[in-house]
């Protein structure tokens, strides 16, 4: 991993809060959530702030910041707008992948435009037949002269409808030996806007503005030099990013949980019943206190894992723990928040219903909590359980 630049975390956190508070206050966020689309200006704005280049090395126009900085910014983005955080996390993952295994030409071609917000890249790994069992993918790419021909389907490809290319995980070679399924999988940068590739939106109940898509590859082509990383080693190239992806997913959950807690506490102070603010009743106060404690623990775990990644470690078990624990904290926090606000929390004008819906995605994305438990269990020395 490249050396990271020092950064004033408090200043980053404060400036992110001020940006959202003044430029994208909750009514603007709610409008995007209802429209199920990110305002393109929002993406351009965060590019202008340099956020898209956070993980990109400085020589390609990025900031080369640490995983801790990424976690802090991710929490702040998710606190304001979790749909944006999902897309932002995806972008960061792609940027890391390009930085780690891209050729110099690929880095210049894709990273510079991405960091500037001029180009969006998507990533296609899950398929309609399965996501957790990623190695069972059926999308294939074959080299035909000077170009790849890709056939298959990808599901949950965020921002594909706006992307200029989709980094597509496809089998290019049969595994050898057959039981080593990770072998023979490659990453192909497939340009969009071609007849062999059709993209349609999938509308979810949560993270509605993230813009997830279904992609059909029916003879889609990509130049031969669009192979990202070594042929047949695409899955191995992704492994190095998984811990970062999981810890940042934990940071998104922390952001959602914080939103639910802050809104619930504000409501509990303001709403009166029986002559007192409802926050004066233990039935309201205690669950929120539990959320506060769990939120603090989740954030500390996320930051601890991020620090270890920045120190050059691969804390696979702890990254899975951070993802798992923070997602469950978000679920409990939004449930308690919803109970605090009762029907007011369900109103379309309330942000609580958005947090509640968005938190649901965190349970199974980017890896299911059940798989995260499998990883932790195996790391504890128990037999592989899947």
């Amino acid at each position, binding site marked *: 991993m490249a050396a990271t*630049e020092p950064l004033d975390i408090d*200043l*980053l956190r*404060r*400036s992110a809060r001020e940006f959202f508070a003044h430029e994208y206050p909750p009514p603007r966020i709610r409008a995007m959530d209802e429209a199920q689309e990110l305002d393109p200006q929002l993406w351009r704005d965060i590019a202008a*702030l*340099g*956020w898209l280049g956070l993980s990109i090395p400085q020589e390609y126009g990025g900031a080369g910041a640490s995983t801790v900085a990424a976690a802090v910014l991710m929490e702040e983005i998710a606190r304001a707008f979790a749909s944006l955080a999902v897309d932002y996390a995806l972008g960061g993952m792609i940027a890391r992948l390009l930085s780690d295994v891209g050729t110099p030409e690929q880095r210049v071609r894709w990273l510079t435009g991405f960091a500037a917000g001029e180009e969006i890249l998507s990533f296609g790994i899950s398929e309609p037949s399965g996501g957790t069992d990623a190695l069972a993918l059926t999308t294939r790419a074959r080299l035909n002269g000077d170009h790849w021909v890709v056939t298959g389907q990808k599901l949950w490809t965020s921002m594909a409808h706006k992307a200029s290319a989709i980094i597509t995980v496809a089998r290019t070679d049969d595994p050898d030996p057959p039981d080593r399924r990770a072998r023979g999988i490659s990453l192909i940068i497939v340009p969009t806007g071609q007849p062999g590739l059709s993209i349609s939106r999938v509308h979810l109940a949560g993270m509605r503005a993230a813009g997830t898509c279904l992609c059909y590859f029916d003879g889609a082509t990509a130049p031969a030099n669009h192979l990202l990383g070594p042929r047949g080693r695409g899955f191995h190239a992704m492994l190095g990013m998984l811990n970062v992806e999981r810890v940042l997913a934990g940071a998104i959950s922390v952001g959602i949980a914080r939103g639910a807690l802050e809104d619930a506490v504000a409501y509990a102070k303001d709403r009166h019943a029986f002559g007192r603010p409802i926050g004066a009743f233990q039935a309201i106060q205690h669950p929120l206190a539990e959320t506060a404690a769990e939120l603090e623990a989740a954030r500390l775990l996320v930051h601890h894992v991020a620090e270890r990644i920045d120190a050059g470690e691969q804390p696979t078990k702890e990254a899975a723990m951070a993802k798992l624990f923070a997602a469950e904290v978000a679920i409990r926090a939004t449930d308690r928040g919803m109970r605090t606000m009762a029907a007011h929390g369900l109103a379309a004008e309330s942000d609580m219903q958005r947090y509640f819906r968005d938190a649901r995605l965190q349970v199974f994305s980017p890896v299911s909590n059940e798989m995260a438990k499998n990883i932790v269990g195996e790391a504890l020395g128990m037999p592989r359980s899947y």
Partner: protein
Amino acid sequence: MNIIVCVKQVQDPETPASQFRVDEAAKKVIPPPGIPPTVNQYDANAIEAAVQLKEQHGGRITVISLGKDTARDAIKQALSMGCDAGLLIDDPAFEDADAYQTANVLAAAIKSVGDYDLILCGRQASDWDQAQVPQGLAELLGIPSVTPVAGIEVTGTTLRVKRLIEDGYEVLEVPMPALLAVSNEANQPRYPTLKGIMAAARAKVDVKSAADLGVNAVGRKVQLLRLYVPKVESQIEWITGETPEEQAANLARRLREERVI
């Protein structure tokens, strides 16, 4: 072009009124827990104006703040927006400085920095709203000053300054070096970029005491007699009338009696 920007860290003006407290005995504002202080908004306009001038004409921007150690955050924010160097004057003797004492120590700090072409301040600070320091500072330094400023252009060694007046603005030509007190009409302060935040992390903030600057906290001009939160009382008066027109006429009469219109 060498620019100096004076910034003040203030209590966040968006602090809910319910959390605003004063210690009447000590005659001090009690910082609200959990709400960090912030850069005075007019000072953020001054920082933005300085950075824009640097972008247009090149040069160097030095940020100076008189305050506690926490004011380092205000300087860091200015650095993250594009300023180059920071100087914090941290001295408990100046904790409750009045406008004259503040201007006096800032003048000494500016002299310690060296040559300058332009000094930018916010038109006033949102905590005490006195709008005294900028002009006092210019007087002590013996340079011309303009306040409140809504626009700045530089031509050679002359400034062309748009100054706000009651019903519009006037344009003044001012020779440099000069001091301008910037108003919010001048610009929209930028948000720090990631690279700016990183540059701020690398930048060193010098810290000096009053003794380092050769000044002391004497010559106070203002005595604070009492500090308290005024009680706000509201009364409702129903305006009656047989018809809407009569109600409107009665309302207008009452407003005139109260000298509202």
